[in-house]
């Protein structure tokens, strides 16, 4: 019998596994399942970007790089961020290349949190935020966002959730899993509050290029925010580069320097071929990105209309590639709905509760998949709904 569990740290042993993993285990064994559960682009990385990685390998560029990433990589990031988001960052001291936003957020938490510090974040949200905070022996404090508000963060809810000891606010707009965005007015109110309470802000803007309505505004561009915001971004979503595992953080020098310490001991550097592919994406990836964004928007319009036709109320997500329909009219909770739908019609959607308690009553459906699959999923969901009494 394996008794090695006694070696596992208490805060890790008590950490729940991601609810998504259980689903993945079931779906992966199921034949003919239609999955709306895939949280990554269904496009292959654009050819010219893959070519840059191949060329890097052909030239024998297989070494470590500077811990922060190559000079060229950081300079391109600096240009891209200034052009598209506003703030200017010094490639020498204010930019750090990472293994995706996942690492960037992890090392930001580890570099800034003392045990017992409190972190505010809006829910439903990406699965790693609260566990990553817990792993730093800090306390994660969720702020509920709601469908009526298109899952934008209400500044009043932020104020109500705040308590002494809060040090950091994590934002993610557009949001996985809701597609929620925050307009300039909301962000200004949030910024004002962050300044008032002296909060550091971690802004995960991984889906920012995939904004379908209105312009994306980065909180880092608002007055007084550059010095208290760490802008986190990567290439996985906009440029369909999930497998490259490449991202970056931009922020005030002292915080980036702290992150660099954690990064250099834990990671050393991001893979050089991924950095070189990322440089190509920053320089020449815009057309490919816009093409993919248009495809996502078309699929979004279809899937949202379909859910509403089926009587599963669904707001129009303004960004990212997830629909987040309300399934409460079925009388089931999110997990029951997702499990029964999977068992009876072999359609995989992720229960909203996998993204926090505020996701109760919803399921996430990725529209980063083909029309054929979305159409087929719609037919199967219709059949499933026919079998249950509706409220």
């Amino acid at each position, binding site marked *: 019998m394996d008794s090695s569990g006694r070696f596992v740290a208490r805060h890790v042993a008590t950490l729940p596994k991601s609810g998504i993993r259980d689903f993945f285990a079931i779906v992966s064994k199921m034949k003919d399942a239609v999955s709306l559960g895939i949280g990554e682009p269904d496009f292959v990385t654009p050819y010219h970007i893959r070519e840059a990685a191949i060329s890097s390998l052909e030239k024998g560029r297989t070494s470590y790089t500077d811990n922060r990433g190559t000079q060229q990589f950081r300079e391109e990031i600096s240009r891209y961020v200034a052009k598209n988001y506003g703030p200017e960052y010094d490639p020498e001291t204010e930019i750090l290349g990472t293994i995706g936003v996942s690492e960037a957020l992890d090392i930001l938490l580890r570099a800034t949190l003392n045990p017992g510090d409190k972190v505010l974040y809006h829910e439903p949200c990406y699965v790693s935020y609260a566990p990553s905070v817990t792993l730093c022996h800090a306390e994660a404090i969720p702020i509920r966002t709601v469908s009526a508000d298109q899952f934008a963060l209400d500044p009043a809810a932020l104020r109500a959730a705040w308590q002494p000891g809060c040090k950091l606010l994590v934002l993610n707009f557009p949001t996985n899993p809701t597609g929620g965005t925050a307009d300039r007015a909301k962000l200004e109110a949030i910024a004002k509050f962050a300044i008032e309470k002296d909060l550091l802000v971690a802004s995960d803007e991984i889906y920012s290029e995939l904004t379908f309505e209105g312009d994306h505004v980065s909180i880092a561009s608002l007055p007084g925010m550059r010095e208290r915001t760490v802008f986190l971004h990567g290439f996985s979503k906009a440029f369909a580069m999930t497998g490259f595992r490449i991202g970056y953080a931009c922020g005030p020098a002292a915080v980036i320097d702290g992150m660099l310490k954690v990064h250099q001991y834990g990671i050393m550097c991001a893979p050089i071929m991924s950095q070189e592919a990322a440089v190509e994406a920053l320089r020449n990836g815009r057309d490919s990105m816009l093409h993919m964004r248009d495809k996502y928007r078309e699929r979004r319009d279809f899937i949202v209309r379909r859910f509403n036709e089926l009587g599963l109320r669904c707001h129009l997500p303004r960004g990212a590639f997830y629909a987040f329909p309300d399934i409460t009219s079925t009388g089931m909770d999110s997990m029951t709905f997702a499990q029964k739908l999977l068992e009876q019609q072999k359609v995989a959607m992720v229960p909203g509760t996998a993204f926090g308690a505020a996701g109760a009553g919803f399921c996430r459906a990725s529209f980063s998949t083909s029309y054929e699959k979305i159409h087929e999923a*719609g037919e199967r969901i219709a059949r499933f709904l026919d079998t249950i009494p509706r409220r």
Partner: protein
Amino acid sequence: MNSVLKLILDGEALDTAQIGKILGLGAEAVDRELAALRKQGVLLGMRPVLNPSYESEHRVRAVIEIKIRTEGVGGFDGIAERISSFEQVESCYLMSGGYDLLVVVTADNLYKVAGFVHERLARIDGVQGTSTHFFLRAYKKDGFIVNAEGSRRDQPSVSP
């Protein structure tokens, strides 16, 4: 671009009812759109894209470069239209460069292609010379990678 056209060009296997549902139009409206596109000469037709390895058990395909002389025979168009009218000819293009027409033909076997070249093409007034190349193996056809199996096989079916 016309939304129906855009969707069929994406290459997904969708019937008109599915296209109608996706675009919120209804199947009849899609049929009307398609009919209008045909009438305008935008849409010439729709055919399945077959895997060439299946096709090659029954057919051979060749590309023929043709040099032509235009004096006294009605110019390029006259000859190109004449060549296009043969049923063996799948496509026919006027080209820049070292030859004038590029013709793709299919036939039951190699001998039938050879017969087509010397009994039909070579006899057309104005055809000065031909160069025939047979297709050996296809790697990509009409935008589809022929052996695309497994390119995403490690992608998890559910991910955060």
